[in-house]
């Protein structure tokens, strides 16, 4: 089953073979986690996003077009799920910040102890927005070109080309600054 084509696995699953879907999950967990971690910056959120994506795929497999690549379809669903979560998270943080400003000193101290952890797996990537990160990852890891990235992100190839250019430039600056700071130490 490991060497099987994605589309064959899906057909197998649609014919009632549950193991085919298990193989899809194992095959795509790493890719899904990588994209989610880069966008959401938090392992727990990334896992939630991946689970949601797999459940959506499970429920919507009947709508899959077998003329297209499963990987593209998968990335399209997963990317939009991650972006939805980023928006929800941002709304929640804004609400939290608003409420924090209203609280008294004692409550503020308590909040510091129980504050939401904001982990950044790659702290240098703060300057990149989720769209730039997605474009970069799909380009660097999957070898996608701007047209394919545009189809996944539902935007034009010109826009993704600009995202990629800006992101690659920022990464280069980050790497150069990092090297400079290491040399001065």
């Amino acid at each position, binding site marked *: 089953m490991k060497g099987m084509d994605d589309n064959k696995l899906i057909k197998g699953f649609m014919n009632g073979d549950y193991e085919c879907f298990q193989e899809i999950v194992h095959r795509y967990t*790493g890719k899904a986690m990588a994209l989610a971690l880069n966008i959401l910056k938090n392992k727990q959120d990334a896992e939630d996003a991946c689970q949601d994506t797999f459940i959506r795929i499970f429920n919507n497999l009947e709508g899959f077009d077998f003329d297209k690549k499963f990987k593209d379809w998968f990335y399209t669903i997963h990317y939009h799920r991650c972006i939805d979560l980023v928006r929800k998270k941002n709304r929640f943080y804004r609400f939290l910040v608003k409420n924090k400003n209203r609280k008294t000193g004692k409550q503020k101290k308590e909040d510091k102890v129980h504050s939401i952890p904001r982990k950044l797996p790659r702290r240098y990537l703060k300057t990149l927005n989720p769209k730039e990160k997605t474009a970069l990852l799909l380009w660097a890891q999957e070898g996608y070109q701007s047209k394919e990235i545009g189809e996944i992100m539902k935007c034009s190839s010109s826009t993704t080309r600009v995202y990629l250019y800006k992101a690659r430039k920022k990464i280069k600056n980050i790497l150069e600054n990092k090297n400079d700071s290491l040399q001065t130490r």
Partner: protein
Amino acid sequence: MIRCKLVNILFWLLPINQIRSYLIQKHILQCPHCLEKLASASEVRSLLATENSPETKVDLWPFLKQKLNTPQEKRKSAPFLQKRWAYAAAGILIAFASGFFIFYSLLDHQPKEYLSSSSDIQIQYINVQSQPANTYYYHSPDSDFVFIWAEKN
């Protein structure tokens, strides 16, 4: 070098993706000097979390298996979600229709306007002391009052 600088200036001066994309395709990706300023795929992979990063090694299957073990129930619930819109539309329609009828029934109970013209008055006959009497009526033009005068024959 001068061309590179010009392209860079144009890139930042014209924030239109089509123009920027054209500049990238026609110059930046072709020019070795400009390419030096962009990170390569391997450099990007060294910074981003990728498929091979340790933090991406998780086993989602046990949780998913639990969730997906009841596919029949999920499929059953899906038509209900679609029907929900039909129920909502029907509810709105019923509320609208009942509101319409209530409004009209209220209108019917309101007192009708006072007779304002002589054509609305019909007098069959008036008896005075069990005898038909001569009857006259007077409708003043500036008010809705009608005076009826009966005279014994």
